Structure formats: structure tokens, C-alpha cells
């Protein structure tokens, strides 16, 4: 019994550590949003974009934003457009300097913002 408990607590400790290493840093996400001048097109609140052809990012699913930024970065590397490669002159250039960590933090912070977006209304 003691052994099982020990194993369980060890496993839960490991699990929490693995979560910690994956946890995105919201403040760092906000800082990256400012550093990479995302607001100049998407707006300070990430929903009042300069042109309505630019999407609202605030409140969007974090994993979608991460996918999109990664796909733009791949597109800039020269590969043709595909389901996980997006070609866009502006966003390709914007996404290129981002690190994995930047993308993780940006996506998490953006998805935490107040937003009009919803799956169903």
C-alpha cells in the first residue's frame, strides 16, 4: 500500500512538473505582443484591428493561434502552401523571428483576452 502511494505521489509530482514546463507565461505573451508590434495591425486589445480584413485574435483558441503562427513561419521558409503551411507576406515576416516559447506565450495570452468570439451563440 505504501509503495503504491509513493508511486502515485511520484507520478503526480512528475505530472505537475511536466505541466509546469509546458505552462505558458501570460506576462511574457503580453510583452512579446508589444515587442513584435502586433498591435500596429491587430490593435492594442487584439480585436480592434487596423483593417477589418485582419482577424480578431483576442479570445481565439490558443492551439489555433499557435498552429497559425507556426504555419506562417513555415510558409516564410519557402515551402508551398498546404494545410500546415500558410503563405502571407506580412505574417510570414512577422512570425519568422518568433521562438517556440514566444509562440506559446503569445497564443496563451491572446486567448485569455476578453473577446466577442465564440463557438456558438
Amino acid at each position, binding site marked *: 500500500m505504501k509503495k503504491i502511494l509513493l508511486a502515485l505521489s511520484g507520478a503526480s509530482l512528475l505530472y505537475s512538473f511536466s505541466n509546469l514546463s509546458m505552462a505558458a507565461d501570460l506576462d511574457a505573451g503580453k510583452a512579446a505582443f508589444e515587442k513584435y508590434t502586433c498591435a500596429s495591425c491587430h490593435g492594442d486589445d487584439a480585436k480592434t484591428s487596423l483593417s477589418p480584413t485582419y482577424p480578431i485574435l483576442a*479570445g481565439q483558441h490558443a492551439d489555433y493561434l499557435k498552429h497559425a503562427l507556426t504555419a506562417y513561419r513555415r510558409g516564410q521558409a519557402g515551402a508551398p502552401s498546404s*494545410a500546415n503551411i500558410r503563405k502571407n507576406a506580412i505574417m510570414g515576416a512577422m512570425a519568422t523571428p518568433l521562438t517556440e516559447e514566444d509562440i506559446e506565450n503569445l497564443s496563451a495570452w491572446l486567448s485569455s483576452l476578453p473577446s466577442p*468570439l465564440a463557438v456558438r*451563440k
Partner: protein
Amino acid sequence: MKLRLNKICSLSALAVSFLMVPILAHSQEQPVGDAQAARSKISMCIGCHGIKGYKASFPEVYSVPMIAGQHADYIVTALNDYASGARTFPSMEAIAQSLSAQDIADLAAYYSSFK
């Protein structure tokens, strides 16, 4: 004289048609969206975008983006890009290619109306 008049007529008709081209092209690009009309057109959208927790599964797993509340012009841009192949995703390309400019405008009006 008759010939000349004809010439003037055809020339002016030509001029008018040239003037009309940008106006027509513009009106074809940007029909006015009708959110009510979109109600019979959203069946293709809701099967993915209207289901909580729905994920695209290939080649990457991620939640499909929320489109309710998004800007109308962005939705138009996205659908046109899918239709032209500038942006690619198998299901979205097939759907976007099946939509008319009016369908796209209606869907954009519908989804952007949720604010």
C-alpha cells in the same frame, strides 16, 4: 455623316463600357451580405465551427478557429483565399470553391453579427 455618327456612337459606347468595367467588377467583388439569407447556408460551417471542442486532426491537431464574432471582411478574405488556393486546407478549399460571392458575403454578415 451616318457613318460618322455611327463611329461616334460606338466610340462613346466603348468609352462608357470602359468606365463601367471597374464599377461592375467592384460590385461583383463585394455583394452586400444578408445575415438572414445565410441561415440556409451555414450547414456546412456548423459541423466543425459550431461544435465545442472540435479539432482539426490532420496534419496537426488543433481546435478549429472560432468564427462567430469575427470581422466580416476577414471572413470574406479567408474564404476567397481558400477558393483561390492562396490558403489551403482540404475541407475549407472544397467548401469555399462551392460558394458564390453572394454566399460568402451572406456568411460573413451572419458570423460577424454575433458581437
